[in-house]
């Protein structure tokens, strides 16, 4: 049982992933609140927008670690999400601050359902990958 770099990257990924799970939970709840009229869209966007970039960066961070550790398979399963994130941010509406969500267009039923679906899918993905990282960490710890 040796503590090596791949194991380190998995540990970071585990911690990061836990945060990501919380982010996507928050995301899902926030959009649910919007849908049920509990929150003003301006407030909701103001609370959601600052979290978008940290989430993306956190995800990117442990993927960089995977790349450095040579964990190609782990990197591969995360690549589609990274690509999606980049594309999503590239095509965001015109806005001065960071973030994705525009209070004037977010109440459109299409946008709302899309965002909500996105939240659920991400939550599922992060949850599954959490167990995969756990497995990967243990595997890399005991393999050598």
């Amino acid at each position, binding site marked *: 049982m040796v503590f090596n770099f791949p194991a380190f990257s998995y540990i970071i990924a585990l911690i990061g992933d836990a945060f990501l799970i919380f982010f996507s939970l928050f995301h899902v709840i926030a959009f649910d609140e*919007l*849908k*049920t*009229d*509990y929150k*003003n*869209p*301006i407030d909701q966007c103001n609370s959601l927008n600052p979290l978008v970039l940290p989430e993306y960066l956190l995800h990117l961070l442990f993927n960089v670690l995977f790349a450095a550790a040579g964990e190609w398979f782990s990197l591969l399963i995360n690549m589609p999400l990274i690509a999606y994130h980049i594309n999503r941010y590239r095509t965001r*509406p*015109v*806005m*001065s601050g960071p973030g994705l969500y*525009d*209070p*004037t267009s977010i*109440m*459109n*039923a*299409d946008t709302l359902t899309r965002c909500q679906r996105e939240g659920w899918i991400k939550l599922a993905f992060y949850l599954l990958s959490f167990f995969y990282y756990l497995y990967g960490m243990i595997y890399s710890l005991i393999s050598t």
Partner: protein
Amino acid sequence: MSTHGNMTEQSVPNGLPPQFGKSNIMTPLLPFNGVDSSHSSRTSSPANRIQQIPASQLPPSRTVIPATQLPPSGMKPGFSVNQVTQNYANLSISQTTPLSSPKIQPFGTSTPLLNISKNDLPAEGISPIHAQNVFKHSIQSHFMNVPGSANNTNGRHQHEPSIQEPSNNLNTQNLMQDKPTMRQSLSQPVMDKQMQKIVLPPNQNQIAKQPINFGSTPNISQNPSQKFNHNLFLNQNVPKTTSQSKIPATIPFTNTPPVMRTTPIPPQKVPYITPVQQIQQNSIPQPFLPPPLQSINQQPAAQSSNVPPSNIIQPPKTNLHANRYPVSPQIQNNLPLQSHYQNFAGSQVQQQQRQNVFPNQRTSNVVQAGFNKLWGQENLDLLQCPNILPPTKVEPPRISLGQEFLDAANCSTDIFRCTMTKIPESTSLLQKSRLPLGILIHPFKDLDHLHVIDCSTIVRCRACRTYINPFVFFVDMKRWKCNLCYRVNELPEEFQFDPETKTYGDPSRRPEIKSSTIEYIAPLEYTLRPPQPAVYVFLLDVSRAAVESGYIHTFCNVLTTTLGNLPGDARTQIGFIGYNSALHFYSLADGLNQPHEMTVLDIDDVFLPCPDNLVVNLQERKELILDLLTQLPTRFNNSYDTGSALGAALQAAYKMIASTGGRITVFQSTLPSVGPGALTVREDPNHRAGVEVQHLNPANDFYKRLALECSCQQIAVDLFIVNSQYVDLATISGISRFSSGCIYHFPLYKASRILQAENFERNLKRYLTRKIGFEAVMRIRCTRGLSIHTFHGNFFVKSTDLLSLPNVNPDAGFGMQVSIDESLSDLHTVCFQAALLYTSSRGERRIRVHTLCVPVASTLPDILASADQQCIVGLLAKMAVDRSMQSSLADAREAFINVAIDILSSYKLSLNLGTDGGGLQVSNCLKLLPLYISALLKHTAFRTGTSTRLDDRVKAMCDMKTLPLYSLIQQIYPDLYPVHNLLEQSIVLNVDGEEIPQPPHLQLTARCLDSKGAFLMDMGEQMIILIGPSVSEVFLNEALSVSSYNSITDQMYSLPILDTLLNQRLTNFINHLNDQKPFSATLHIIRENSPNRSIFIERLIEDRIETALSYHEFLQHLKTQVK
């Protein structure tokens, strides 16, 4: 007898049984408000439902319901009322018993004028009247246009004795025997169901009256005469009223022989009004005959004779009566008329066929059922009828709810319109029809008469907060069932008080139940803060470009004259800011001799130079304000500052009125170039004609964010763009779009251009003096199962069904796309309710409620036959604007074409013709759709290939989003009329007794023009009269007062007022057109060879231009695509 009859009539329309012991007679009325509740989900326990209602539907200010609103505990109404109530309650709830013999009862109700005391009748609702007879009566009264003739009641009296006789069963059997034959004749299993639904055969009379009552046709008689004050041709010299009205009163009748007028455009079958119509109009003593009903026009005669307009109207059913009874003379009258309207060979043949077929109808029933089904939709081949436009105004289709009271109570089509007059019961059906589902609403429209209710408690559903409306169901006298969420609510005691007659009793006599457009004066719990005063801030661009355009002068003049007419009470406040590279504030402090100007050079961090006196009370400082308005036009004449700090000025104005809210009016003449929100030129003039249009989206979000801040503080920003160059309207329009403002655009504005200046002045005058509602919110509720998908218009969407409108103005329209979430198959009708809560300019909190009720249909042909083409086009235009912003203009254009193809394909599918249909088949109610879509593709907003300034395009797109439907349609497809032969046209009298000629609409194509003619094109804010080179001398002299064709100058902007009949007719006609608009249009008279003719010619959108297909080519293209 007669009084009794009247009462019955009164109470029947209210959907409730009369009080005077007739509850038994009215038993068959039980299917309440057109809906048979035993079949609907409403009978299921409401308790389940309540929990399903999202808390979201509760209003924003969810205060505790005051004690007054709670139902009275110990109420003891009079005995009789109570008893009736009980009777009624029993009947309405226990649906099943009376309907056990539903085949008889529906027809029994057809004679509501019945003077039988309650005791005479058996308790059970089975009508002992000979079924055959009753049936006949209903038809008679229907056909003969007489609501319950004496004949009718006599008939009933004769049968009265038979009540006690045991012939009851026998008669029933009689009818039952009849029934199989009927069913056979139809070979339609639907029959049985329909028979049950037949509730109360409305009499034709009332149906015919409806357009008059409801005024969806802006007919003259309803327009207030005062509108004539600001018409275009104001001239006091000519006595308009009495002397002139006498002359034509005789002339048209004598001068126009009932001979076909020789039309100057013989080769085409221009759908002129034919003498048949003239005669009819002359012979009818009414002052104004409404334009021929579209429904009559479109639907076959058999359908117009459709006795019970039940929820599902199917052509075969209508023929039930056609089969069994001779067609009434009235209907036969319609036929020749109808064929005159439709000058297409195909349909004429069809109609003749139909006429011929009527006598033989008893024989081959099965075959006819099939044929009639075809006629029900009356399809026509687009490729074979180039003149598709009806000669009269395109009437919106009527919504038929099955009860005339409900039909009459339904919301006016001017205010509320649904893309379909029948809602498909499921999403799959909607998708099959390929029609967009949505509603267009013009909530704050200026109304001639509006019920205003001032009461302490507003009756609303406690679960979904729906306002009580004509389409609710009364369970009994003290309870009502919400028509949106189906919760049973208590009715407060006050609600049984009828304010008109000042009596207690029937709740259905309340104005809330009689009219679906109603205004409440809101009690205190609807106010979050004291109602705000009217606050107006004017931001004036005083840069060099603005000074050169000269708009300031016009603005100051107009404001000076309208200062007293600004809507508002004694608290009205007003303020001014001028801005170029700096901000110029004007302090109007008490005691000053003249306004003090304070210039703030620091525009990056805006501050107010003094805390108060920038926005001042209008009444108290009127002198100073007038002084300022006289000084302003010349104040910046010598300034050569070209900068424009719009962003900073907006921020300053925001700070000035953030505490109260109000309206900021911006006059912008140049691109904002300095300070916050500065923009750069994005448009490349070389790419104006390109296929790819870029920069439709804002360059930054400064204006949008500021607009949201404004919206939160109840401030709306309106834009007047008087630019000569690119101003990046795509970006700066954000300030209005999200703060519910409005945008006016005067491209290449120069005050020296008379027409433009006039247009600007009229717009501004209307803008300043029109009604305004402050701190408004609008909530759209719809029946469970439906939801609002997307909103279109200028506002900020606060939650899924709530729009925040800091200001609401009477010229703003909104659109909503609706999606069907759940199956509606157990419902018979769905409702939309728009409630607009606003503070009037007098500081009153008011709620304007509009309710629209639409039946549900389950078959594809029904849905396709119920399409409202104009409304569909209005909604499509809004959706296309979104599409072109989100993806690209090319996408939006493609989507338009695809919609046309899809709809035509699905229609073809529903016809089941297979592939043999050679032409482009389309139903009558969708026949104009391809025309409008081809017009939209050539509209400034969506055209490609033609050089279009980006600002113009963006403005046109904003208009698509915000204009109310009637003006939008006029923009998309302007009205063209021949005006050289007005003397030969049929006339109608308006409310002032003026004769309005009714020239036919012409297609917008050069083949409708004629060198001998003069043609008026009405584009909404602008009218153009094109004078052909060989127009008659008489016309030139008598109408235009010019000696010859060549002496028409290029600057002829008004019609002279002459004492000739021709001139009067033309003036009256133009005034008539103007009366339907918020303000009168400018007029430009141009010669056919003048350089200005292009503005006319480019609107002939059916013709081919170098870059776009003609209408016919467009149809050909569609035909190749329609599968």
